[in-house]
């Protein structure tokens, strides 16, 4: 099996640098939030708190993969950012139509309203960046 070429750009350079920083901030914010929620009153809103934890893990994974780079890092980042996009869209919608499911907020509630809607924008930026840095396949490499 031929060894695939590495991504064209390092994932954490250029605009990726700004993206990693943003993901890092959200990784810390979401981890802190879920730690406080689970540490103080885990019984109050188990679903919301589980989703906060999921968001925290996804942000941490995305940050780590962007920092590490390489083809594997790129692939895992694609998975993490995709789940993140599905998560924010699903939770964002549910938090409007099924309010009883969420007695307390998550990072993704109301499409990340509490965070300036950045949680909604971030996965799109992430996907755009990962598309821009996609590994060359040989046939479609125009760079």
């Amino acid at each position, binding site marked *: 099996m031929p060894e695939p070429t590495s991504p064209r750009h390092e994932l954490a350079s250029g605009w990726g640098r700004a993206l*990693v920083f943003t993901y890092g901030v959200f990784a810390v914010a979401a981890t802190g939030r879920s730690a*406080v929620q689970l540490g103080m009153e885990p019984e109050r809103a188990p679903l919301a708190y589980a989703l906060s934890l999921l968001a925290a893990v996804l942000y941490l994974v995305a940050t780590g993969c962007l920092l590490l780079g390489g083809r594997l890092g790129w692939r895992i980042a694609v998975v993490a950012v995709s789940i993140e996009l599905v998560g924010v869209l699903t939770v964002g919608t549910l938090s409007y139509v099924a309010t009883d499911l969420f007695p307390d907020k998550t990072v993704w509630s109301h499409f990340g309203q509490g965070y300036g809607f950045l949680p909604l924008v971030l996965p799109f930026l992430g996907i755009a960046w990962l598309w821009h840095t996609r590994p060359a396949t040989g046939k479609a490499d125009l760079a």
Partner: protein
Amino acid sequence: MNAVVYGAVLVLAGVAAIAVIVHLIRDEIPSDRTFVLLGLVEVALIVQTVIGFVALATTDRDVSGVLFVSYLIGVLVAPPIGAFWSLAERSRGGVAVLLLAMLTVVALEVRLWDIWNAAGA
């Protein structure tokens, strides 16, 4: 919480953010003056941390100590981490990190203020 320090942090972070935006538009590396501004933001944050700890220790308010302290520390470390991460690569993306760091400071600062005042009643 000291309103003067709170205001100073917001104003300084705002001015620093504008200075960084100018650099971004001109596509140049940040000037020494901009780094002085960032330094002033950090000085204000150090003062805020000291005042914040004293205020927390002496207040009668029902402030969530863990939450308040974590925000105090979080906002304090954001500019140095941003500056370090930005300086490692002198590109437009790298400069943008400084802007993001200032926006992070403003966001955390507003939350910090809320945490303090929500417990006031």
